[in-house]
């Protein structure tokens, strides 16, 4: 505690000054170093701050991929709105689809502030120049797939998203806090669908077991292959905090026991918790399948992109109308 009678400086120049990398008179390399120091020390970056191209590009790519995935991710679920078994399920699924599109809008907004216009991002997605998550390239065969997606795909995603709430890029971190809150509802909705099926008739149990068998491989691939923490650019810039393997382990440790609790199985005889290391062991996922699928060669990639292209063209008049503004109709 400082003596209240003293008038000593208590804040060092660094603590009270504007962030020094924002000062335009400094040479580029010096600003780069100051920026890096700031971020590596846990500092946050706001949209209006100066930032090196390396950082801007890395955040943009990361957020854009995330936004694309939210936008494409509603298509497999949307197919089931009309076929949902009860009115409540229909309402919940409709709300989830609306939420996910809302997330893509929030995320495209974050990306726009980094300098890439939204139209360009949509067009790059439709042209196959940018990617979306592997799990959204697969078909949904039964209602149980809807439960499996809402529970486990959203769970795998939220494990990653929770680690982004502390991202160095503050507008993204804030958006992730809102998104995680909404996603937690989706997980409950999905788990409720799965548990209901697991408690149902033999046909219903078979249906959910088959859905888990279908989705397990894509789920294990979803976070990506193991990577070297030291070489990961997104970790270096503190855009994200955890490696793919850390996220996968976290996902397995929470959700495998919850699947087993229902008397359901997962289609990997190697899957078990290794008591000595505390880590989950599993059959190596098929990384070639992941690469094939995310480069838009998955079973449903082309169909879903074609639907989005159609949708983009059909809604052009809405965007044009918004920009042309209200008109007076001559009497």
């Amino acid at each position, binding site marked *: *505690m*400082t003596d*209240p009678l*003293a*008038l*000593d*400086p*208590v*804040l060092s*120049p660094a*603590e*009270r*000054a*504007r962030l020094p990398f924002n000062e335009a008179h400094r040479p*580029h390399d010096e*600003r780069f170093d100051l920026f890096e120091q700031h971020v590596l020390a846990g500092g946050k970056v706001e*949209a*209006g701050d*100066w*930032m*090196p*191209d390396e950082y*801007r*590009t890395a955040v943009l790519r990361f957020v854009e991929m995330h936004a694309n995935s939210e936008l494409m991710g509603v298509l497999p679920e949307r197919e089931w709105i009309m076929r949902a078994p009860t009115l409540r399920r229909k309402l919940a699924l409709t709300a989830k689809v*609306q*939420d996910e599109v*809302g997330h893509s*809008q*929030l995320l495209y*907004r974050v990306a*726009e*502030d*980094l*300098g890439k*216009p*939204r*139209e360009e991002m949509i067009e790059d997605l439709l042209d196959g120049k940018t990617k979306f998550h592997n799990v959204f390239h697969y078909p949904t065969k039964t209602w149980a797939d809807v439960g499996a997606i809402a529970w486990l795909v959203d769970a795998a995603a939220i494990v990653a998203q929770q680690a982004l709430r502390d991202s160095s890029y503050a*507008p993204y971190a*804030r*958006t992730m806090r*809102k998104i995680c809150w*909404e996603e937690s509802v989706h997980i409950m909705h999905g788990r409720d669908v799965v548990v209901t099926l697991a408690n149902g008739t033999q046909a219903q149990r078979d249906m959910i077991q088959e859905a888990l068998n279908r989705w397990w491989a894509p789920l294990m691939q979803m976070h990506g292959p193991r990577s070297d923490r030291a070489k990961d650019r997104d970790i270096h810039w503190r855009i994200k905090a955890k490696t793919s393997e850390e996220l996968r382990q976290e996902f397995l440790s929470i959700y495998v026991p919850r699947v087993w609790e229902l008397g359901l199985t997962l289609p990997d005889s190697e899957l078990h918790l290794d008591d000595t290391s505390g880590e989950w062991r599993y059959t190596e996922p098929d990384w070639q399948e992941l690469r094939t699928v995310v480069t838009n060669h998955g079973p449903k990639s082309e169909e879903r992109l074609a639907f989005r292209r159609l949708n983009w063209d059909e809604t052009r008049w809405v965007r*044009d109308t*918004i*920009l*042309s*503004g209200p008109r007076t109709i001559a009497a």
Partner: protein
Amino acid sequence: MTDSLPLDRPSPSSDGRTLEAWEVFRQEKEGDPMRHGGSVMAPDAELAVHYARELYGRRQESVRLWVVRRADVHELEDPDLLQPPLDRSFKKPGGYVMREKLAAARERSGQAKPKARSK
């Protein structure tokens, strides 16, 4: 690409309307402060309010929304005014630490420490 692009690149249209950023503030419940929620892109206030409702009021998570044109937000960031270097602890309750002085006073007066008040 050059380091640090300007924040907004408005998309012009033939009719001269442009999309621009609007900052959204939301109040979670009556009596709470307005807090920054995020931003939306819109060509005018009416649509900005509409988008804000869709993105920040869909789940009854807000009782009031404000939208403000980003260009109308003026920022004060002068550290000489916001974070003056000298000790200003006399302006805060935490700047007055009396525990030891009170102990000395009690010893001098022979009085016991008053019991904590129950609520």
